[in-house]
């Protein structure tokens, strides 16, 4: 009998969870819907007003930023390479480039000094 009792409680609790759960899932996604339908535009508009004018950076985000590595040094190296090669690579290429570069020239050769001025970040 205890089993049955327990069992009954379980079933009824089951129904509660079922209804509650569905309501919550729906409301959750409803809120999300609402936000992206109404909230977001407002947000973006206010943001635009605030950052009026000086909001170019976001646009010109490009893969090359990924060279800059957490872990730190890669960037400077690749940068150096770039300064030399006057172009952008993503991390992988940068590494390759370093390899080629090694063969082509001593990264320290004074050649490099001619190519900088127009490349300052």
């Amino acid at each position, binding site marked *: 009998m205890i089993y049955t009792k327990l069992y009954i409680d379980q079933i009824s609790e089951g129904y509660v969870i079922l209804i509650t759960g*569905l309501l919550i*899932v729906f409301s959750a*996604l409803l809120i999300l*819907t609402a936000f*992206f339908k109404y909230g*977001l535009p407002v947000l*973006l508009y206010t943001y635009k007003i605030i950052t009026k004018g000086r909001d170019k950076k976001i646009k010109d985000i490009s893969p090359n*930023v*990924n060279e800059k*590595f957490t872990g730190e040094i890669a960037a400077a190296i690749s940068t150096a390479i770039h300064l030399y090669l006057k172009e952008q690579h993503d991390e992988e290429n940068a590494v390759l480039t370093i390899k080629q570069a090694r063969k082509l020239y001593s990264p320290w050769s004074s050649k490099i000094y001619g190519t900088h001025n127009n490349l300052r970040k």
Partner: protein
Amino acid sequence: MKKLFIIFSVISLLVFIRPALGLNTNSNTQTLSTTSVEQVEENSSESFIDEAFDGIKQFYSYTGFANAASGNLIMILIGIIFIYLGIKFDYEPLLLIPIGTGVILGNIPFVAGNQTGIYETGSVLNYLYFGVVKGIYPPLIFLGIGAMTDFSSLIANPKLMLLGAAAQIGVFATFLGALYLGFNLPEAGAIGIIGGADGPTAIFLSSKLANGINILPDGTTVKNLIGPIAIAAYSYMALVPVIQPPIMKLLTTKKERLIRMKPPRAVSQKEKMIFPIVALLLTTFISPSALPLLGMLFFGNLLKESGRTERLADTARTKLIDIVTILLGVTVGASTQADIFITKDSMLIFGLGAISFVIATMGGLLFAKFMNLFLKGDEKINPLIGAAGVSAVPDSARVVHAEGLKSDKNNYLLMHAMAPNVAGVIGSAIAAGIILSFLG
């Protein structure tokens, strides 16, 4: 030189052919008196043949042939079928092939105690299985999924998110069904999530609720249902192309299937960047227990959309998720060790799983039709895309696309189906969190 070699090698060869020849040079036994060696020789040469046979007999008792139970053979066959389906019909091969191989590995008969089986502490499989038991792999998979998901379709047409919610009916209905079949609450919760049609979510929830460790108020320990639940979830996900079409035909009219939806608007990069952050906050505030899943999902997506962390996003969506997929697949497969896996419970779970997929699909379809009551003109939804709400990404979206083409070979629903499809992922993660909060 040559000589030296010959001598050297002959000696070392003699070491082990000696007994056969029966001669007595013990040139390289530094450690004991000749007498004792004599003993060795006699003792070993006389009864040698018998002993060799004993050895083989003894070894035979270790082999799979000696220990194979019918259960093992059945499971191995199932494993081979999984692999066959994956290769031949291209059903989710990246899931079925690792899982299938795992099923075979887990059912090679072995003698317990040699740290071979996945359930033996100290075995390699057991260590790799850790990531499943502790629910560590699923969030990492979600990280990768986030890093490869484009939520544009959802941002462009947010109301389609509700279809992802509707499909969760499958989760809760199955949960209730499991209760009726006599599973206790936590087990039922874990079983219900199969209806979410999301492997990682299913593994995550079952590892928290039905892990064979938790103790219930009434003192009993919950069953370990991770294996059956995971297998059921993944099997039915792979079978979506078989399960869904008939239901779609059944519940939609020709006319509905012909509805064309207007192309979604373009979405700005800025919106894409804001989406993961806002979605993360809203969903986890509502359902904090789903944090590991939703947190990682949207983290991955932020890595993808930030435009500054492409290299991290790339790693997350390629090598990292590949590694986790390999380990997850093979260990989940191996967890189907026959003696533990082949039980009435497993059978019930498979039954419930089938129902849950059907209900989830129906939920999505019917809710789409329901929404149409309130939508007019080119706002109307093609109810077929409701079926994509079950997630099982991206197969159910593809199924919808295919079904749409059957009715009108110029009606391309893939883009639209992606919205409920990814919403379904979010939906079942939230549902998992809710169930966990109530029963965890």
